[in-house]
């Protein structure tokens, strides 16, 4: 039973998060910061998430090609 649950969890982790969890972490943090800037500081930070996505991709590619992930 526990083995089946572990396999189920591992499948969904791989399905959504994939090979590099740091990409997912950067996207989530960027969304949280965007929401804070918009709602707390009144800044329409439309540029933040695209920049974070480009940075996350560059960071992940760097890690993959240097054998760190």
């Amino acid at each position, binding site marked *: 039973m526990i083995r089946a649950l572990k396999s189920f969890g591992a499948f969904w982790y791989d*399905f959504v998060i994939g090979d590099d969890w740091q990409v997912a972490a950067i996207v989530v943090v960027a969304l949280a910061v965007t929401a804070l800037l918009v709602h707390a500081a009144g800044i329409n930070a439309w540029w933040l998430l695209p920049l974070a996505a480009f940075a996350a991709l560059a960071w*992940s590619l760097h890690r993959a*090609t240097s054998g760190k992930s």
Partner: protein
Amino acid sequence: MTALPLVLTVFVACAVEAIEALTIVLAAGLTREWRSTFQGMAAALVVLAAIVAVLGPTITLLPLTALRLVIGALLAIFGLQWLRKAILRAAGYKALHDEASAYLREVAAAKAAPEVHKRGVNDWYAFTLSFKGVLLEGLEVVFIVITFGANQHNIGAAVIGAAAAVVVVTVTGIVVRAPLSRVPENALKFAVGIMLTSFGTFWGAEGAGVRWPGDDAALLVLVPAVAAVSLGYAAWLRRAHRLSAAPGQTAGAAGPASVTESEEVTGR
């Protein structure tokens, strides 16, 4: 956004998944037994239909802002993983996805497996191979249909795009009776990664409260920007990989820094 970009995006994304499912079904059917293969395929389609029937209406009940935030985040993460792999393939750090060799691997495994009669199925191996292949690839189709359809409040258009892709790939597969290895699958995956990342970023930021300059027209800038940056990364890495290859060695997937990842699980 009109329905056409939605239908086209879902069509291309789902065609890629359908091609991979077709390879597995053909390997099971031609090597083992068609009846058990079709049973496996039908069982997987029933499970997928149940997931759409439950998730589709439920997800559209969520408030639009929350929906866009969660789905945007998921799509952006999902899309960036597709792009990452597509760029690594384009740069030569990872072997290109090849349906012909994937088919040969599945055929070799299918020929080696014993024939077991189980739960009313003549060939359990053909059944499970077909079931898992269609379910895994189909889950990505379901994910794309539900996320794109729900965000645009047009699940019908997304279903039409997905169904058209499955029909086109299936009919082509029946005619050719071989894996669709001539389809530029890696280029398609690159394009899908760009679309998923762009739409995910757009919807995610909207869900976080952002108002995009030009509203939906911002996508006309965002999609080319994501494409340009991704192609730039690929060109840069290709050059770096070529330079790092040893003298006299052709830079390729088996080069000094080849990357091994979980493609066989997700199919991305």
